[in-house]
């Protein structure tokens, strides 16, 4: 036990004395605060934001657009559209000249056979059909539609769907549904998934590089003369885990504080305030996920002769964590309690990341996180024991090349 503590202390001290560690640990929250402060300031200060938008998007273009109506469909421009936004031209040549003169920025041509072909031609000097503020083509299409329907404004809108839909949910548990129109509701589960992926991957690959480096430089040989492989493994896992936990708490705390502050600065709806329970579950899932992946990585480090060969196998090990990332911007937002999200969050190897994404989306039944945590804990115990048996002096000292197959065999104790 005493020797384990020595290993543990040594790992923590070595890690904490590395400048690059502090750069990442403190750099990310500081960056987040800076960006947050800047955006908040810009929201209040319009002159600064206009200078910025000038740099990023060029001088604002408020010049009108023109149209040439060869089909004779447009009779009137509705009053809701500001005067001068759409200018009529008799033919294409005069519209073209107006663009060259700069009095309009672009023009539409409604061909004679428009009703048959449905083609509208949009002529623009810089061609860009996706220019910002390109909502104008929707505006023109609306004008056209209103005129085709004999000036009936309401009918022209209703053709696109109802103006307003009142949603009534009869669901037994009032699942908290996020507002789909707000970009933050997409960003939140996505951000949490990404954060957990990086946290678990970052801290467990520390273990891989640590073990394989000591193996490569033969420090391991010296160490193993005075302590058992299991003591070494335990000391390393706990030591690096504590540091990783510190990072997790720091990052999650920053995220939590920023999310709650943002409610004040950006006046977000109340649902966005993350519940405090997410931090507690975050810590639980980090510890368990870390235990699983760090042991897997340590086992890899023990078997691989050097870091370069080990990193080829890393991908296979990390795959269960990467899969939830694929879905993070889709399934976990649109259907956080659907079959795919639930399966991913229950399967132990993908659970640490997937469960956190679901918790951030909200509406997870109360009994699921404890159940998943229990499953994950059982898995962690098995994997730690399997890896401990891999940590034999023989394996640690050999220089045999690593293959995925041999790794899996060793894990299964063959």
């Amino acid at each position, binding site marked *: 036990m005493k020797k384990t503590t020595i290993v543990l202390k040594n790992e923590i001290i070595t890690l904490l004395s590395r400048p690059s560690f502090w750069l990442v640990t403190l750099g990310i929250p500081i960056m987040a605060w800076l960006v947050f402060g800047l955006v908040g300031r810009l929201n209040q200060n319009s002159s600064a934001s206009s200078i910025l938008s000038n*740099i*990023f*998007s*060029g001088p604002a273009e408020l010049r009108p657009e023109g149209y040439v109506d060869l089909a004779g469909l447009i009779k009137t421009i509705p009053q809701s559209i500001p005067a001068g936004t759409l200018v009529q031209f008799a033919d294409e040549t005069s519209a073209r000249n107006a663009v*060259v003169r700069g009095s309009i920025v672009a023009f539409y041509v409604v061909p004679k056979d*428009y*009703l*048959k*072909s*449905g*083609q*509208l*031609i*949009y*002529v*623009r*000097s*810089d*061609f*860009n*059909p*996706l*220019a*910002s503020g390109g909502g104008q*083509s929707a505006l023109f*299409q609306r004008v056209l*539609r209103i005129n*085709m*329907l004999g000036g009936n404004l*309401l*009918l022209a*809108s*209703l*053709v*696109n*769907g*109802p*103006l*307003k*839909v*009142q*949603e*009534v*949910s*009869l*669901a*037994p548990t009032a699942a908290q*549904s996020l507002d789909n129109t707000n970009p933050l509701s997409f960003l939140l589960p996505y951000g949490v998934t990404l954060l957990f992926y990086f946290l678990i991957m970052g801290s467990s690959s520390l273990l891989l*590089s640590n073990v394989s480096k000591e193996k490569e430089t033969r420090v391991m040989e010296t160490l193993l003369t005075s302590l058992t492989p299991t003591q070494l493994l335990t000391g390393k896992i706990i030591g690096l885990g504590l540091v990783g936990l510190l990072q997790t708490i720091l990052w999650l705390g920053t995220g939590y504080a920023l999310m709650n502050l943002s409610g004040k600065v950006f006046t977000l709806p109340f649902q966005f305030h993350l519940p405090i329970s997410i931090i507690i579950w975050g810590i639980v899932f980090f510890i368990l996920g870390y235990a699983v992946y760090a042991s897997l990585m340590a086992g890899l480090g023990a078997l691989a002769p050097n*870091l*370069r060969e080990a990193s*080829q196998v890393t991908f296979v090990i990390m795959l269960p964590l990467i899969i939830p990332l*694929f*879905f993070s911007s*889709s*399934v976990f937002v*649109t*259907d956080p309690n*659907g079959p*795919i999200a639930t399966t991913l969050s229950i399967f132990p190897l993908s659970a640490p990341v997937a469960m956190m994404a679901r918790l951030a989306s909200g509406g997870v039944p109360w009994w699921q996180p404890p159940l998943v945590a229990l499953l994950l804990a059982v898995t962690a115990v098995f994997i730690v024991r399997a890896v401990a048996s891999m940590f034999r002096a023989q394996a640690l000292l050999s220089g045999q090349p690593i293959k995925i197959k041999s790794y899996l065999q060793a894990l299964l104790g063959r």
Partner: protein
Amino acid sequence: MNKTWQVALHEYQRHVLTRRFLFGLFSVPFFMVILVGLIFLIISMNNNTTPLGYVDRSGLLAHPLPAPQVKLPDKPTPFRAFSDEATARQALQAGEIQGYYVIPADYLAAGRLQVVFTKAIKSVPRQQFYHFLEINLLANVESSISTRLIAGDEIIARSLDGSREMSSRNGWFGLFLPIIAAIGFIIAMFTSGGYLMQAVVEEKENRTMEVILTSISPNQFMTGKIFADICIGLTQIFAWLVFIIVGIRIASSSISFLQGIQVSPQLLILFVVILMPTFVMVSAFMALIGATVSEAREGQQMISLVSLPIWIPYMLIGLIIGNPNSPVAVTLSMLPLTSSLTMLIRQGVTILPAWQIALSSIISVVGAVFAIWLAGRAFRLGMLRYGKRLTWREIFSRRGGTA
């Protein structure tokens, strides 16, 4: 010159014929297939073919016209009329319908709907119901107009001089083609660059380099390596192109938006005058990193110094597409490294002035020459040092030139 070729040939064979290279070659199309499959899976998850009910109090759907045909991969959702809300609610609770819409008597005046569900209605059935409403709203409108409104418009964007034209029918897919191509190019650039760096570090570490340099000059050696690196990258790109062309041939019969793909000559020019110099520059930087560091692992960290600027335009992609001629976009397309992706993004959405292409190309070429010079210098200085990193100050100091 002969020796340069020998180095290049050796380097090329050593990397291309390995299992790792072939794995990289095949994994990209493999992952693309998986990704496309995932996208289809996600789209199909938005389907729900359980009937959708409605209670019509406005008389709009008294004698409904059938809902319009549904295009694949969407599946049609049947609609069921209910005379009153109570029966609809019963059906919902019995699980016969996924939800129901209530159309109030004043719908045509106020445009408000109510929807009742136990689980939110997915976007595909919701959109189908709106189309169903639309077709019935337009029942009394002249048929030529109603067909037009239901079918929707096709916007054809055209530049003022008529040199570029693109249709909205494919969801502006053509605009993103150059971006996808550029990203593939950059990935190939970095994988082959990574090989180069590793080769240099390895040969330095195991002292092979000392032996080689007894019979060849450092400059010949460096040139050979960089040349081989570019060939490896191009091999990779060529192989991917073959995959993509075969894929398009197979898929174009079933996926309509792939049919209209055309590669403009300007795109090819950009590849030659901007992406190729950038490639040379990145290779030289990789060799430079290999010569500077003492371990391959350290080199990995330093690669991010080169890859970060390359990917900056990707992070700003929305901004550049929205405002392709803004000061930021123009500046990024002039700076070496960032220019490659920025130019390709802008090429899709706007007409690039010739002077910008020329200037950006010249800057890239100058950058590439400078990078090669720097790499050669670092190479001469760092060659005989083991376990000690070369500092930037040493590379740039004048004394080092004669060493």
